[in-house]
């Protein structure tokens, strides 16, 4: 399916990156920082200037559809374009001529029919929009949280819609705990009372890593404090897993403070959680997301089929809060070393 379609589109639009170049030129004119403008200009000279800006073929048009105007979408989108073109050029692949168009979903004009080789959506809103309005295209939806109610609707559609989830596999967080210290044997987790997936996945992963998992089910939002208190006395470390019922803006402060008062370190699932006071966390940075999208684009352009319709995060980042570590009497670890240790373990036992 996608392979045939991809090949067909690939031949039809093999040389065009003009739109991206044309799109980005105003960006250069409006750069406020001369340094950044210089870098971008250099980028264009090396990669894009040979391209005819007046050309407007759709052979390799890639639309990147953003859910909103927040920094994260922009960050991922621009990293996708930069890294894809650079990668393809360095590897002499046809995707070096891809023509990127970055549009926010709110300003996308449905009437303006275009023949895109691929539509990359960033965020749920853009994924839903593409699913409803751009059904006959190949859609690569990234920056999607895996556990969301709208996910059901999204996955129910056709075979040309691929999903790249931003959630880090839960075993990576447990692996981070493992490489942080052998001291952490008993890992506590708060999960919603009706959850089965997280508990099962974590239990399996904990078993493989020889960690004891202490799962406390939270009956209701009012019971978060009591459930946490029950847990903290019996664990070495607390693992936060994505669950808006438990970890949200109004609860994170109390969870962090309660754990800290009892000198129990916490592993977060986002960089914001770590910056707020968790000891460390494995998460998908915008760059990580972008690199996985790039890999998928390369795959599609090369005519290979995508390995899976739904993919979990391939790349990951680690953040370590040195201030919290120091206060807890925990050795300050280098993020690079931690990541290297994790990659070693993942290579040994993926």
């Amino acid at each position: 399916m996608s392979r045939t379609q991809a090949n067909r589109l690939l031949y039809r639009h093999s040389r065009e990156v003009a739109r991206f170049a044309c799109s980005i030129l105003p960006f250069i004119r409006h750069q406020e920082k001369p340094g950044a403008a210089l870098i971008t200009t250099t980028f264009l000279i090396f990669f894009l200037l040979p391209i005819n800006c007046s050309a407007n073929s759709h052979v390799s048009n890639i639309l990147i559809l953003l859910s909103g105007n927040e920094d994260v979408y922009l960050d991922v989108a621009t990293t996708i374009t930069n890294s894809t073109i650079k990668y393809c050029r360095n590897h002499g692949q046809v995707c070096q001529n891809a023509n990127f168009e970055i549009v926010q979903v709110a300003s996308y004009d449905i009437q303006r029919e275009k023949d895109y080789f691929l539509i990359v959506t960033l965020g749920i809103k853009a994924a839903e929009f593409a699913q409803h309005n751009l059904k006959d295209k190949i859609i690569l939806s990234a920056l999607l949280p895996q556990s969301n109610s709208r996910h059901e609707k999204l996955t129910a559609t056709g075979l040309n819609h691929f999903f790249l989830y931003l959630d880090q596999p839960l075993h990576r967080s447990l692996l981070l705990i493992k490489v942080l210290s052998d001291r952490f044997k008993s890992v506590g987790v708060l999960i919603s009372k009706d959850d089965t997936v997280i508990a099962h996945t974590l239990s399996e992963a904990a078993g493989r890593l020889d960690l004891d998992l202490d799962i406390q089910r939270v009956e209701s939002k009012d019971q978060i404090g009591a459930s946490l208190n029950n847990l903290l006395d019996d664990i070495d470390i607390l693992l936060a897993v994505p669950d808006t019922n438990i970890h949200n803006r109004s609860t994170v402060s109390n969870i962090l403070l309660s754990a800290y008062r009892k000198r129990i370190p916490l592993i977060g699932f986002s960089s914001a959680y770590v910056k707020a006071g968790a000891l460390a966390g494995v998460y998908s940075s915008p760059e990580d997301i972008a690199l996985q999208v790039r890999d998928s684009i390369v795959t599609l352009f090369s005519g290979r089929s995508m390995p899976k319709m739904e993919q979990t995060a391939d790349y990951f980042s680690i953040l370590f809060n040195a201030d919290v570590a120091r206060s807890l009497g925990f050795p300050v670890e280098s993020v690079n070393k931690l990541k290297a240790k994790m990659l070693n373990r993942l290579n040994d036992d993926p």
Partner: protein
Amino acid sequence: MRNRRHRTFRHIPFVILVTLSSSKAYSDADSTGFSESYFYDDLPVVLSASRLSQSQANTPTAMTVIDKKMIQASAALNLPDLLRLAPGFTIGFYSGAGATVTYHGHADEYARDMQVLIDGRSVYDPVYGGIPWSELSLSLDEILRIEVIRGPNAAAYGSNSYAGVINVVTDHPRDLLGTSFSTTIGYGKARYFEAAHAASVKNFDYRIATSYKEDEGFDDRDDSSRARWLKFDGDYRIGMDNTLRTSLGVVHGNYDEGLSTLLQKERELDNRYNYQSIEWSRFLSPANSFSVQFYHNYYSIYDLYRTPRLSEQIIAIEELQSLDESVRTDYFAGLISGGAYDFDALLDELNLTDSPFLFSWIGLKSHRYDLELEHTLEPVDDLRIAWGFGARHDRGESYWLFHRKDPVSRDLYRLFLNAEWYATPNTVINAGGMLEKFEDKERLFSPRLGINYHLDPSNTIRISGSRSYRMPTIYEDNVNLAVYLGSADDELNTWIVSTEDLDPQRIDRIETGYFGNFTEYGLNFDLCLFHEQYTDIIDQYRDFGLPDPDRGLTDPFALSVLDELHSFLQSGAFTYTNFGTVEIDGVEFELDYRPTIRDILFLGFSYLHVSGNELKRLKKGDYSIKENAQDKIPKRTFSLIAGHSFDDGFTMSTAYYFTDEMAWPGEGDTVPNYSRWDIKLNKKLNLSNSDIDISLVLQNLHKDNFDFYHDKRINEHNIWKKRAYLQVKISI
């Protein structure tokens, strides 16, 4: 770099993008599913530099941290008993409920050399000095952590943070949600009951707790106690950045106390204590926060003692028992007057009445009002500063102690600054000072400087020096304690009187230490070598030259007979001066090993070499010195806890405490070494709606121990026998 790029992109009017706006708030509105913003939106920084406490590896002084696991394993049933764990600490129970706690000894029943804080509130009694341990309204179950700073630390905690500081941190109500009941029965007809309820209502967390305790104290003494307290703690969060913490408590205790001597007969003390504390913390930014705390402590002891009438006392004199009761009073009068007076004449000539004596050794009312503002900031990377200022008003009222009806008060103003600076990635410099101005006293400056050098993440060496002062108590500065005859207007004999303007006593300590923190093995240990010098020690001595009231007599013969009568009670009077000097060189070691979450091993050891003197008496300018400091400070202390939790919720722990032979100052005696072995067996049952925790606590299994009193002359001994307690806690 990434952040910088983000900011750049924010300002790009990218033609194919709609106008940019700031990021949306991290939302929890979607409870059934979440969007990618859940992972990428910022969260408020909770544990920032201004909220994080200093790690033990970076503290400039030796510190023992007693946490919940140690408390649970210790088999202690009260706070003073728990403090036996800290190396160099000496704990004495002068009665069943009356405790005194000191670091490096040299303290009587009312150890005045320790600062004790409960959630930032000093519980040191400014009037009589010491800590009213039995009035603290504190359950061991609510203690989160006790930080025992061994050595002076006035730079951070103010004067009276002299020999050491005990910083008790309690759980927030939010961390103790639910309802709990606890009951303990055991040795000495002990019947302890505690109940607590904690809940959260929106942004308000609160806890109400109450306790009743009664027991009969030591076996051979009339020192039973009945104490009850009620308290409330509230924690109100106003938005993300403001917290209002309140604490209120009221305590009432009755304690039988006394010795078999005439003037210390058994009596019942009626103690009342209440406190109110409010603290507002505002989080200005991750690197900037401040807090304002105000508290008031009230402490009163009703201890008015009325002896039998004068004639009855004379009749009871042991040396006169061979005489017929009807002639004893006349015989006594003839004895002290050279045969000139019979008893009636004695009363007439010396303006006496055959009345009881009235007096109070410690009856008082004490107030402490304290206001402090503290600002914590991180002006540049690697430098944290906490500075602030405060004011305090201490007030004491006691006709019996001060011989005046109006209160005696003392104000204090203070300014402090402490800094933690990472001079290099491996070097932490702690520097600080406290400037204090007490009313009618010279300004005091208490500095502290320490350098901690991390050889690697696990090994730290430190060197530090600090100076602290202990301000004389209001009592020591103003005491005029007398024995009265019949009524409060008739002063018969001066017992203790203040005669000079006292200076604060001073301590200087330098220490070098090693702290090993091997996280992988759950092991940390601290080794500390130190030299302490105590100077200008406020010493009590008996001055035979101090006159007693002359009762308006002018006749030399009558005055000489009055002198004889006074000698029957007490010649001269006790008073205070700055005199003693003590030097201590020592080594202290502690080890905390927790190989798994279920195991705990703690060891503490202290060895001291003490030299110093004490002023004993002064008569017509003559005084004698006793080089006896080494007798009053135990040479060695040792403590151990070991515990293990099994799979089925059963926990077994044992504790051992040792204190060398020592002579307790004040009313205390020389006691042989204290060697105590405890065992605690605990079983936790998790039922569907509640948790039940059953403990069997066995104390002092090893041998009988003498504590504080060991006087064969008056046949008074505090003897620790084998003790057993059964404790049941139910949490719902």
